[in-house]
């Protein structure tokens, strides 16, 4: 850098930028260890109570009523987490398969209305969540479907397929079609070419799309809020409900755990990507 003042400005801007993004997260992490149960803005010493509470381990010295309340909310929390994981896993699997297949079909075959097809694939992503949520709710109700995990999975698939599609499509655009021709030239049928050449080449894109779908599914509140039944609360919906009843310190602990999980998933993604590039 030839210009020290410019360099300083650039560094300061970058620092500010990252502070702006990460400060709220750090605040939450900090407060999750704050012992003050009433006002979490006031630091009252370090504690792991809220984490213990989440897992029903909080020392049971309190009165029977509050103890029962804790255990109940912990059970609900874990149930919500389990629901979220089930939904995210199913949704990821389904939308990854459909999104990938569609991306391949659109990239490798010419047919009429291809453009329209592509537009229709991308539309759900552009659609406001609230519209999608209401639409799905009315749709399920008019079909007479009970709101359940199944309706959440169907609902998530409608827009997550778009995300997988767009990620895989970007990857496929960078793959030389001559590779598939070379495979065919060497005697590989379309199926073998797909399995041995195209899919391995696409793998980073597919994985990226799947991770994205998983994370978005775990995170979705608005759409899920409309189509989750009473027995099928997901984690975001549960947390949202908790906050409406007042911000409890446990929420900070939940948020911190979620941040930790997200960082792990992101690190996994980055690691997989760097491994691809190395070889």
């Amino acid at each position, binding site marked *: 850098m030839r210009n020290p003042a410019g360099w300083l400005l650039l560094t300061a801007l970058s620092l500010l930028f990252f502070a702006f993004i990460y400060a709220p997260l750090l605040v939450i992490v900090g407060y999750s260890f704050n012992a003050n149960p009433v006002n979490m803005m006031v630091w009252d010493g370090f504690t792991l109570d809220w984490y213990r509470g989440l897992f029903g381990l909080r020392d049971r010295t309190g009165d029977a009523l509050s103890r029962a309340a804790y255990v109940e909310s912990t059970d609900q929390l874990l149930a919500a987490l389990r629901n979220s994981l089930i939904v995210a896993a199913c949704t990821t699997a389904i939308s990854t398969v459909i999104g990938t297949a569609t991306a391949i079909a659109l990239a490798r075959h010419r047919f009429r209305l291809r453009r329209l097809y592509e537009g229709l694939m991308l539309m759900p992503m552009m659609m406001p969540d609230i519209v999608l949520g209401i639409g799905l709710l009315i749709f399920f109700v008019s079909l007479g479907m009970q709101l359940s995990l199944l309706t959440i999975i169907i609902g998530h698939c409608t827009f997550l397929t778009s995300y997988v599609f767009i990620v895989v499509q970007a990857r496929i655009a960078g793959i*030389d079609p001559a590779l598939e*021709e070379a495979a*065919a030239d*060497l*005697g*590989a049928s379309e199926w073998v070419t797909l399995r*041995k050449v195209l899919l391995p*080449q696409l793998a980073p894109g597919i994985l990226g799309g799947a991770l994205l779908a998983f994370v978005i599914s775990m995170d979705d509140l608005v759409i899920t809020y409309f189509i989750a039944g009473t027995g099928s609360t997901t984690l975001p919906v549960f947390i949202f409900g908790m906050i409406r009843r007042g911000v409890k310190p446990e929420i900070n602990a939940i948020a911190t755990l979620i941040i930790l999980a997200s960082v792990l998933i992101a690190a996994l993604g980055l690691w997989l990507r760097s491994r691809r590039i190395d*070889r």
Partner: protein
Amino acid sequence: MTAQVRGLRQDGAAGMAALLEIRGARRSFATPEGGRVTALDGVDLDVGANEFVTLLGPSGCGKTTLLRAISGFEALDAGTIRLDGQDVAPLPPFRRPVNTVFQSYALFGHMSVARNVGFALEVRGVPRAERDRAVAEALEKVGLAGFGARRPAQLSGGQRQRVALARALIARPRLLLLDEPLSALDRGLRQQMQIELKTLQHGLGIAFVFVTHDQEEALTMSDRIVVMRAGRVEQTGTPREIYRRPRTRFVAEFVGETNLFETVVERIEGSQARLRTPEGLAFTAPARGLAPGARATLVLRPADFSLGAAGAGIAGRVERAVYLGQDLHLLVRPEAGGPAIRVTVRDGAAAPEPGAKVSLVHDADAAHLLEEAE
């Protein structure tokens, strides 16, 4: 058309059918602008077993399209392609007994070199041990023994090219198609690969159809050259025929450096024709049945000229002299006028400088008259 037929190998009578037989191949494409381009406009081509045939022509003349039609990636609008006498039209690419070395090599980046090379055998379900043996042998043959564990990204351009070659050859195709495989290589490597390819082709007994737009490459490697122009075959013949007896002005100008003179036949003396250009330059060439007064285009290669004693031949002044190792390339402007003449002479003690007066004599036997009427 007659010349095209004459250029083909007439071995049908001897009983041996050509390995590859293309008749009347046509293919046109719709362009985004709404028009149509004709990439193949009635191509006939025969390739014998173990023959090295080069498709030579300027960019866009249909060479790649023809190769893709043979390998099955492009369907013909009209015409037939026969391999071993069998029409291949109904066969998808993966069922055709033809392999290709792609211009971009198209190596599989996610596989090791060894797995790339063994791909054709893997697809056929050849057992592992046998495959490994064949791969080692193939890598050995292209001088890449010990490179099997690498990834294509870890190889140089020339090494990748050889992997592509080994991969295409491992299934022992009867016919190998090569689309400008050497165009990405530097000059030295390119010449080395030319020799290696030729040796390999000869040793394996495989027929090669080789695409290039480098005329020097075509001349040094081919058994036969097919000169293409705008979707048609302009001329077919041995490198010597193409170079020495081009049929058209296009072929004469495309293959090698050349001097063309528009001449009129003055008189016939035995088998020799005396010719004169409008500027008054006099030439002698094999008569080839021409009558006095006929117009003819004369082809003389730079090496067909030599420097004569003063007063003999064409008097001119050296405009430019380029020294190229043993040879000296001269551009000589005739005193009588007309376009400058390109001359190649051996470099010697009497090398003329720019501005020097020289007289050029030509080898009458090497002179060639174009068939086509201008």
